[in-house]
């Protein structure tokens, strides 16, 4: 699968289901890439997957695509490692039955040879089959993650609540859908969210649910906060410190909510957890801040407007994920469990 086919598949996935998260589309594309890959070794497989993820971030430079790709790579490593270990165990148990104490050196040589053979083509096809099955299951599980998040979050929306949200987030939309389905009466303020006016898209979608919605200017967040009961935003990425990376304007909203003592809730699926630890706005890598075409064409990035910002964990009250309701300090725990 070469670069154009990869990009075309990714774009088709995004077009087919506009409701799907971009990370899920990326993982689907990588899984298709895995199926068609004709590599001979696991190391080669990992290298080509890294190359494929880079191609995809060239199309859509958001944090979510990058985190989805990294998660898939981690999934490959874990599966292949498990497979190698079980194979090594078989080899050891097989050898143990027919060797005596003096053959210990022979045992080690055979074991080493066995491990190396695990990386060769005979076992690779078995390994790949396991990866494909697990990949299918993984995709099934994460497709249910939005429903889980909605189930957890809608109880925090009380009858008669006034909610403030930022820009267009499909997870927030799902949560509000669930709350509306539970016959709760609430009204929503959405920020316009320039430069792409994504907030208007959100307002349209909410209007279809018969939820009273008002679009406000990005600059009016402080003005509107005294009327609001709670703030709910989505996230493009959740970083190790428990903070989030989201559309520009989120940090401002979080600061204002803290000043007004309003709860600031974040809803995000677990595949958005990413291994970054920014200490301030500058620490967020440039490749996430700007759109992919901007990165390719523009020479001087300091003249461009960033599309995302970083909200530190001290401003976030709670995070709703498919792993449960988490306080920001619990996020790094989850990431450690996965990556170490």
């Amino acid at each position, binding site marked *: 699968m070469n670069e154009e086919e990869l990009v075309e598949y990714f774009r088709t996935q995004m077009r087919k289901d506009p409701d799907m998260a971009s990370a899920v589309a990326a993982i689907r594309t990588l899984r298709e890439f895995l199926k068609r890959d004709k590599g001979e070794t696991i190391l080669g497989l990992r290298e080509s997957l890294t190359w494929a993820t880079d191609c995809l971030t060239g199309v859509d430079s958001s944090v979510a695509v990058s985190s989805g790709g990294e998660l898939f790579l981690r999934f490959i490593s874990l599966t292949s490692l498990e497979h190698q270990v079980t194979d090594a165990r078989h080899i050891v148990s097989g050898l143990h039955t027919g060797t005596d104490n003096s053959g210990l050196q022979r045992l080690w040589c055979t074991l080493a040879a066995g491990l190396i053979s695990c990386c060769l083509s005979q076992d690779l096809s078995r390994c790949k089959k396991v990866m494909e099955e*697990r990949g299918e299951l993984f995709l099934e599980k994460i497709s249910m993650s939005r429903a889980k998040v909605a189930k957890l979050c809608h109880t925090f929306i009380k009858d008669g609540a006034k909610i403030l949200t930022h820009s267009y987030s499909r997870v927030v939309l799902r949560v509000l859908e669930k709350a509306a389905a539970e016959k709760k009466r609430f009204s929503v303020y959405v920020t316009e969210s320039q430069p792409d006016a994504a907030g208007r898209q959100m307002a349209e979608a909410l209007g279809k649910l018969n939820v009273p919605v008002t679009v406000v200017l990005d600059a009016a967040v402080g003005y509107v906060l005294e009327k609001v009961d709670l703030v709910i935003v989505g996230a493009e990425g959740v970083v190790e410190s428990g903070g989030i990376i989201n559309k520009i304007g989120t940090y401002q909203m979080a600061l204002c909510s803290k000043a007004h003592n309003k709860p600031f809730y974040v809803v995000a699926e677990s595949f958005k957890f990413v291994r970054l630890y920014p200490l301030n706005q500058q620490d967020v890598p440039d490749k996430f801040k700007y759109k992919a075409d901007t990165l390719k064409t523009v020479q001087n990035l300091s003249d461009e407007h960033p599309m995302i910002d970083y909200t530190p964990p001290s401003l976030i009250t709670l995070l709703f994920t498919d792993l449960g309701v988490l*306080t920001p*300090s619990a996020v790094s725990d989850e990431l450690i469990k996965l990556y170490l």
Partner: protein
Amino acid sequence: MPGADKETDLSERIEAFLSDLKRGGSGTGPLRGSAETARETTALLRRVTAQARWSSAGDLMEIIRKEGRRMTAAQPSETTVGNMIRRVLKIIREEYARSRGSSEETDQQESLHKLLTSGGLSEENFRQHFAPLKANVIEAINELLTELEGTTDNIAMQALEHIHSNEVIMTIGRSRTVEAFLKDAARKRKFHVIVAECAPFCQGHEMATSLSKAGIETTVITDAAIFAVMSRVNKVIIGTQTVLANGGLRAVNGTHTLALAAKHHSTPLIVCAPMFKLSPQFPNEEDTFHKFVSPHEVLPFTEGEILSKVNVHCPVFDYVPPELITLFISNIGGHAPSYIYRLMSELYHPEDHEL
């Protein structure tokens, strides 16, 4: 017939417990402490395990859940009952996993790691029958009961690390845990305690009497004087009714005022709470969070003329957000409020959060 006798005996005990719970919430001050409630609940669950008819772990969990729902419905504000039921359910899950021989199933929580590596979507259905399961579960419940009995002592043992000589400590209302904590420190240190009386039930008076009998210099103040006196206080040590999943508290009314005053003066706020008070609830459920009792404590019925013209409320609990709390001291040691999520995952299984 002996079988039928045991069953009626069991259901009688459960009924007696339920009516006790209902009466205990009548509002004339807590008639029983949380520790006794926890112990009685666990003893009752042990009896249910021993006497009820069940063949697999799944059946037992269903029975316990059913009884648990009845018990929590009898007195929703008494969260220790629900907590103990969830602990027992977790014990059953662990014993089942151990009997099945699942090696490292210690981490039964959802995690990214599990998401990536698990082999199937199949759920555990706990249908397998294991003969020694009953004995194992009962033994584990006995261990839980031993732990419950030692909680107040374990907390009191840590007193000397936190209370120093010539300090002024403030507390509110009456908490048996804090009482034991202060009395233990008083054996070796000399310090002064200021007790806020905590109107309208004025449990602070009993606390002050009890502390002064132990030889501690005590002062009683009204709730309105908390802010005024706070500048002279070194530490605030309080008990609580429940510790919520976000690290916040549901404590006796007046505690939020105390916490805000402490924050303003940068005085550390220490909460003495045993592990059985940790509850997986979040403070969003308005209808079950607050409890209102008869307002005659606030404005007696003799003031009929005024009563007809005003609305009088007498709430029992206060919510204290986690930002105002410095340290939690529990029977397993001291923790920061941001660590509560970890303790929660060790004590309860996420599927049991909703009984």
